[in-house]
């Protein structure tokens, strides 16, 4: 149990009651502030340093083999609190040499940046590590339509990120090395 302690307030001295010394101290503080370094950033010319774990504009990424990682599982669409994500799933036709074993990919992938709240749930939920909130923070446009990032734009923003898994390559290897049936 916290004990309540009543502190006795000392009566103010005469000089304190005139407030003048306090005013002088205040003036000293503001005056010394004038010679400190500015904290303001001159935005368009100067850009802030973006920390590593910054949550910027959500983007779609490709793996180092330049294959899209998204398989349109729509979990991000499901988890998105403001319902900013809209995916049209599509099937990957068989026999594409660079997309062997890939069955499903988004036909269209739209993120409405007017709705997005940058919560990062989509990145967290993605089972394929295909969506990342990267360092881009300045998103602007002249119309509502412009603010909807489509698949092309999302891949352009996302670029290529290192991959830990190479899921499709592993599967191809397994098939080649005798696990195929």
């Amino acid at each position, binding site marked *: 149990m916290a004990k309540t302690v009543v502190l006795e307030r000392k009566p103010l001295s005469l000089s304190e009651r005139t407030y003048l010394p306090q005013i002088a101290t205040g003036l000293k503080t503001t005056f010394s502030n004038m010679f400190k370094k500015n904290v303001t950033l001159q935005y368009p010319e100067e850009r802030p340093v973006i920390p590593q774990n910054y949550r910027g504009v959500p983007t779609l990424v490709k793996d180092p083999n330049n294959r899209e990682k998204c*398989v349109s599982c729509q979990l991000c669409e499901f988890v998105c609190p403001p319902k900013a994500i809209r995916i049209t799933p599509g099937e990957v036709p068989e026999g594409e040499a660079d997309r062997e074993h890939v*069955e499903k990919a988004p036909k269209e992938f739209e993120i409405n940046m007017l709705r997005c709240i940058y919560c990062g749930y989509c990145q967290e939920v993605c089972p394929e590590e295909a969506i990342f909130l990267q360092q881009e923070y300045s998103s602007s446009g002249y119309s509502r339509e412009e603010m909807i990032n489509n698949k092309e734009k999302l891949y352009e923003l996302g670029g290529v990120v290192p991959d830990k898994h190479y899921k499709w390559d592993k599967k191809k290897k397994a098939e080649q090395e005798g696990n*195929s049936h």
Partner: protein
Amino acid sequence: MISKKNSKVVPIVLDGKEVEVPEGINLVDAAALHGKEIPHYCYHPQLSVAGNCRMCLIEMGTPMRNRETGEAILDDDGSPKIGWVPKPVIGCATNVSPGMHVKTESEKVLGCREGIMEFLLVNHPLDCPICDQAGECRLQEFATDYGRGYSRFVERKNVKPKRTRLGPRVTLDDERCILCSRCIRFCQEVPKDDVLGFVDRGSFSTLTCFPGRELDNNYSLNTVDLCPVGALTSSDFRFKMRVWFLKDADSICPESSAGCNTTVSSREGELYRITPRRNDLVNDSWMPDSGRELYKSVKSDDRILSSHIEQNPCTTDEAMVEAIRLLKGKNIGIVGSCKSSLEEQFLVNQISKKTKAKNYIRGHFAEDDGILLSADRTPNLRGALVSGFTQKYPKDNLLSLSQSLGKKQVDALLVIDEDLDAAQVDAANLDGVPIVFIGTQANTTSNRASVVLPSLTSFEKSGTFVNRSFYAQFFRQAVPGPAGILPDLSLLSRLLNGLTEDEEIIPDQNSVWKLMNSVRGSVLKGISLTDVKKEAVLLDSSKWSDLPFVEAKALHFEPIQKVEA
């Protein structure tokens, strides 16, 4: 459904609690009756028991008896001693017997389940992100409920073909198959079209069609519903939408008078698939493939989307005024529809009675497959009888209408969703006869009609259908109709109010049902809308027992035996 009502009950001890279960059922069902889940893959209550998945392993035992005296052997504390079967048994192939002891939650049982799950997942590709079954997958559910939670399997997994075409509507993903054989048994037992089987052994085992055959019977998509995992997928629904986005509505298949119970799934007003809903009185858990494609009519090209006067688009109000002007004071002929709901047919009949119109109705007949696609290809022909719209059994034509038109007994027509040309009405007789057409799809009659009023498909409204066994079944609205289209009930009640001076009928289910219940001698007496909404209600069909119904003997349906005079 297995209910406790039928036949004798036997006492068993389920997890130490004495309960009573119907005689002769197996332990999976018996436990389910008392709220205990015994996980299973290969067992399906409406198929034969195969017992190959081993997921439903449980511990079973009986009280021990002295072999010579037959007396119960007692424990030290005086209770009967239980002789537990040393190895676990599968619940699906073990029928209950009096005094049987069952453990569904013992450590041994849980260990069994964990082991089985681990084996099933050894070669499972874990491609849940792209699997259509994800979200309604038994493997996912039981892996979270009974699995060990992590994998000890470090070797490479098998790679198998991922998109084998089994038939025109079914695609097989071999990697996901857990070899439960439900689909094989279904094809043998329900459509009696034995095309599926396993080939090869061990981890090479693969589901395949018999050489030269393919899974193309009209019930093939039921295998997709049956499949506890995502191995069998519907080619139509494949990769279209994840199931957790879908909103389900209980509906009735409008394809034929079998009246299959269905679940219509939609997202944001867009229909994605139709799946059967279990009803052991009507359709078990099946429905024909052809009925699953009917949702496409909602967005089809020939859908009528606005009211027309002489083929010019107009508002519903304008069309309604024009329709009333055309019909008022004429000798109206009303062509009803066996596709309308019971409520709508009743309202049409009210119009007919108030305006002294002549009623015509056409039946749509085709071949009967003896299962769930009956010869009567309309959902509600019996509704026309129940609502009193017709007393006679409809023919597959409207020759009588053609004659009446020829004799000028009818000089205005109200047509509900019917194609007069196809019904052999002489086109010459239609000249100069104003037609008011209410329907969803354009046809020659709507093209000829003076006034066209669009209406809603059975996915966009709710109502009641009476199936071939005289079960009244309620279907619910799955998606909103296109903007500006009124439900048929509203259209009909406005017509009725416009054509007669009587007090208005409120166009909602409740008030129409109240009116239907109040008709003298109606078989609906004493049946309320609430009853029908709850479950299928069997109506008294004795009134119509001498009508020449076309349906043949089929699943859960016996044709009425005609009494030879």
